[in-house]
């Protein structure tokens, strides 16, 4: 099957899982990248990209009212861009390819969130038109149609956005590989220090005194373990 069709199916199913119902974590970059990587045959590279995206988007705390980038599209696009670029260019500088893919994943996440807000307006208008029929049978059928229709719309929008973004991202990653030149070291350094954002997220989320102490204990355990091993 064509790679873009596979990506569209994965993005659509993960969008259904994440935004329409179950919310099983499969749509989070760390898992979605693994799924994409396994499907496209570069699980290691995809996972490396997914972990960095996950660490940047490691949201802790109440999700209500906050706007998070579209992690489903971002994760899928980042991982797919990494896999397809590795496949097409065969560039031995894996960190550079992953860095380019992470950049594309971040951009896709932001862009998809913006597009979803716009595309969601049509869905909202349609949902707001719903009126409960008097006949229970008709009401039941209409409710099912609205639920399935709305879920499919969400999946379709994310699938389309993911496919377009992947096609553009592969070109962007190739451009970065070609033009990086002396800046390649900086791009790789950028990828290396991005996980530090997760440290800030943890420090910010667990700012209460007791939780801060527990987090500090966890940090100490990790450092001691690393030193011992």
């Amino acid at each position, binding site marked *: 099957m064509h790679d873009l069709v596979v990506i569209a199916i994965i993005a659509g199913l993960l969008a259904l899982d994440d*935004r*329409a119902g179950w*919310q*099983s*974590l*499969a749509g*989070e970059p*760390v*898992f979605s990248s693994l799924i994409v990587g396994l499907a496209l045959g570069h699980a290691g590279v995809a996972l490396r990209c*997914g972990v960095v995206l996950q660490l*940047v*988007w*490691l*949201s*802790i*705390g*109440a*999700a*209500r009212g906050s706007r998070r*980038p579209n992690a489903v599209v971002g994760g899928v696009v980042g991982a797919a861009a990494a896999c397809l670029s590795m496949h097409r260019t065969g560039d031995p500088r894996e960190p550079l390819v992953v860095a380019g893919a992470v950049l594309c994943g*971040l951009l896709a996440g*932001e862009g998809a969130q913006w597009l979803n807000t716009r595309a969601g307006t049509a869905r*909202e208008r349609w*949902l707001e038109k719903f009126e*409960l029929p*008097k006949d*229970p049978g008709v*009401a039941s059928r209409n*409710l099912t149609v*609205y*639920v*399935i229709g709305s*879920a499919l719309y969400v999946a379709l929008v994310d699938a389309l956005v993911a496919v377009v973004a992947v096609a553009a991202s592969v070109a962007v990653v190739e451009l970065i590989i070609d033009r990086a030149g002396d*800046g390649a*070291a*900086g*791009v790789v*350094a*950028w990828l*290396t*220090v*991005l*996980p*530090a*954002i*997760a*440290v800030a997220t*943890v*420090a*910010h*989320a*667990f700012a209460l005194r*007791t*939780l801060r102490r527990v*987090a500090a204990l*966890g*940090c100490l*355990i*990790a*450092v001691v373990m690393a030193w011992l091993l």
Partner: protein
Amino acid sequence: MAPVVGKLARGDLNRVFVRLLFVQATLHRRGMQSMGVLHALDAGAELISDDPSGLLARHTEHFNTNPNMVPVVVGGVLRIEEEGGREGPASVSRFKQASASALAAAGDVFFAGGLKPLALTLASVFAIYKFFPGLVAVFVLYNAALITVRYRGLSFGYARGWGLVEAFSSPRVQRALVLVRTGAALAGGLLAGMIATEAYHRGWTTLVLSAVVAVVAWFGARRGVPASRLALALFPVAWLVATVVH
């Protein structure tokens, strides 16, 4: 599992549960989860009420809570409706609003502030070390917890009715919230320690740069700047600095 007492049998509750898996599908600003709840109630309405359309008409109002807690509220609503909504439609509406608010707070702290970060942090740790069984274990355990809370929540709500509001303000629930938040903090600390250790192994330059990025991101987080925007802004800076230094 305890037998279900009431007009709805286990199979009927299962049907309600399946529909609740799509409660977020019809999320919209005006009614939020109202259509999702209606769709779930519809699965049991004919069995508990002589006037199913009247029952559904009472629940078209705005409804919003943590998605993992919706089954508890729907279970409670089904029980109250089955008992004839003793104190009239206003009572059911009051129950929905009261339980939705209480459970939204508890659900957000438990899931968004505890269990999900805990699972994602551990998954990230396993992914960094490419330990795939760990990754699968996190996924399976998280979903087992999710299915337990949702499925048992529906049965619990149906068994308790009005009583579930008191049940969720009990010290046991508060202890569980504290426990899961503490676990998430510990896992977060582990992740932070691992990132610091990795940076140290790559050399002092990486360690110092990581510390600078962490401090900037922390200040950004305090001022509400999204981490992803900061990451995007750093990309051209890194490229430019490397080109100039070279």
